[in-house]
């Protein structure tokens, strides 16, 4: 199956699809708070997530991956482009429909310490989405609650406690149970293990895999950690400065990365016990500001494969470079 740049959402088994999605944050300055510029956090991104798969979204801080994730589930309103869920255009659906959609799309955040309301107990935290999004009666909610805590390996005596009484790993379990409570089909996991220790991370990743299998969940897994992405994802999208640089099946991406940015990213991963860094690509400088991104290819200011004016003048598009592998680089034109 080859991936075209623009997806015909209805014809594939895409659960969630983005078409040229943009999200700008206005910058207001001066005493009159006039709108003077935009932070182009997400700037024309197209991709799809297939039913039952885990799509990894990887990039450095500030590249817009979190914003993209939240925009895709309409926690943020897109500035431009279209978003399709299960074939339906949800870009500007009514508030009522959006609430219904929340049952299908849930999110897990990076820091469970701050994503759980500190003034609520565990039982309330987990049942809250059911109370507001479903018409289930109290018994049904209670039954589901007990089912869930068993699922995520919490205990009944935890239910009356406040979130701060738990370790990071357990807090993330509570957050997962909360997200799972309304039986969603898609879960956006926004750096779900970055705040955790490695030994706890392993447990959470295992739990997420088990739940995916059991409930046939689809994940959009956002992370900056390539090793974690490689471990858990079926396909991976690499993001740089608000745009997608490359999308490919995980094994292809890690074996034969195409985009110069992806290659630099991969070679930058510290490697335990490796034959050291002779072939390491060290990028110069840091990521430019999304407020005033470079012209043409946004990566050209740091690119080690810079091939001339075309990189500065024309923005490369995602083109197919092999089986389900697309890359946005003039190098491959």
């Amino acid at each position: 199956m080859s991936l075209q740049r623009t997806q015909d959402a209805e014809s594939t088994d895409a659960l969630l699809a983005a078409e040229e999605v943009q999200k700008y944050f206005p910058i207001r300055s001066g005493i009159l708070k006039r709108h003077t510029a935009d932070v182009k956090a997400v700037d024309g991104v197209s991709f799809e997530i297939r039913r039952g798969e885990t799509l990894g979204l990887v990039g450095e801080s500030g590249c817009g991956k979190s914003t993209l994730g939240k925009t895709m589930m309409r926690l943020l309103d897109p500035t431009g482009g279209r978003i399709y869920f299960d074939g339906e255009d949800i870009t500007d659906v009514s508030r009522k429909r959006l609430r219904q959609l929340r049952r299908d799309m849930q999110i897990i955040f990076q820091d469970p310490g701050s994503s759980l309301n500190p003034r609520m107990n565990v039982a309330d935290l987990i049942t809250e989405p059911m109370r507001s999004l479903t018409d289930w009666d109290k018994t049904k909610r209670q039954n589901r609650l007990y089912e869930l805590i068993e699922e995520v390996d919490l205990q009944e005596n935890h239910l009356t406690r406040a979130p701060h009484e738990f370790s990071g790993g357990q807090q993330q379990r509570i957050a997962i149970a909360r997200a799972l409570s309304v039986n969603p089909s898609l879960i956006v996991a926004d750096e779900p293990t970055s705040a955790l220790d490695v030994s706890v991370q392993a447990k959470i990743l295992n739990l997420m895999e088990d739940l995916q299998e059991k409930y046939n969940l689809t994940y959009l897994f956002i992370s900056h950690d390539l090793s974690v992405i490689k471990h858990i994802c079926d396909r991976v999208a690499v993001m740089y400065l608000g745009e997608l640089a490359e999308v490919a099946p995980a094994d292809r991406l890690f074996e034969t990365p195409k985009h110069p940015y992806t290659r630099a990213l991969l070679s930058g991963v510290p490697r335990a016990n490796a034959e050291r860094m002779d072939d390491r690509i060290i990028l110069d400088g840091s990521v430019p500001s999304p407020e005033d991104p470079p012209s043409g290819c946004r990566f050209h200011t740091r690119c080690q494969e810079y091939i001339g004016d075309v990189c500065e003048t024309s923005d490369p598009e995602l083109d197919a470079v092999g089986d389900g592998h697309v890359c946005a680089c003039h190098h491959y034109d």
Partner: protein
Amino acid sequence: MSVGHSDSDDDEGDGTPKGGQGSRVATGQLARARTVLRRVMQNRFAVFGLVVVVALLVTAAFAPWIAPYEPTEQNYDALKEPPSLEHPFGTDTYGRDVFSRVVFGSRYAVFLGVVIVGIEMLIGVSLGLLAGYYGGWTEAGIMRLVDISLSIPAIVLALAIAGMLGGGLFPLIVAVSLVGWRGFARLVRGDVKSVMEEEYIESANAAGLSDFRVITRYVLPNAASSIIVYATLTIPTVILWSAGLSFLGMGVQPPKPEWGAILAAGRGDIDSAWWIATFPGLAIMLTVIGFNGLGDGLRDALDPRQVR
């Protein structure tokens, strides 16, 4: 909190790992209240404050039983008598017992403190909430109102309002409330804005909660402790302002035994009968220290991150 700013993912900072199942932190609201109380009790100043405030409340409640005389009872046989066993705080120019007047004055202090802070809180918290939650023009408008109010010195504004309304208890309440709400508004707006930045608000949106539910279950509970602390610390200010306005003749009017008014009346006799002005002043001071101590203690107890 700079002890062991150790590991990126250790948000406790003191190297304490969270214990999960073995967690020793007590559970539930009741336990939370107990923790707060325990922390208050560890702070000597706060304990002192609590004692003073309780004593004040008891005095106000049982004033008729504590005071040996009627507060307005005049006695021309005992004019300006210095403190004695019979009149512990002496008598004033009309022979009224200063002690009894100060005891009854506690009722005004408690009443004014509680009522005015209540009104300020009602106005300030609502406006602050609106400004912080909705932002945009609502916020701009409300904050402009706060700016305007802040550029007129508090007593000046209160004086103008109270004076124009003609003096007395009711104008005093209106004047001080209309001046004091801005503090609550600023505080609550700031708190709400920082709560709105928290990830749990996004989590509430993902759970499809209504604005009302977000406000009542997320925003207000998380801003509550700072509101409580601020209210406690505002009571002494309000008591000082009320006494000040009464002292200027623009609040509670003599012969009513309000502390500021008693003080004002004793002002002319400061050289011949120092006790008339001294004791109500001490009463105000003690009350203010009491509430400040309690407020300080509450702040430390409710927010252990605060530098002590």
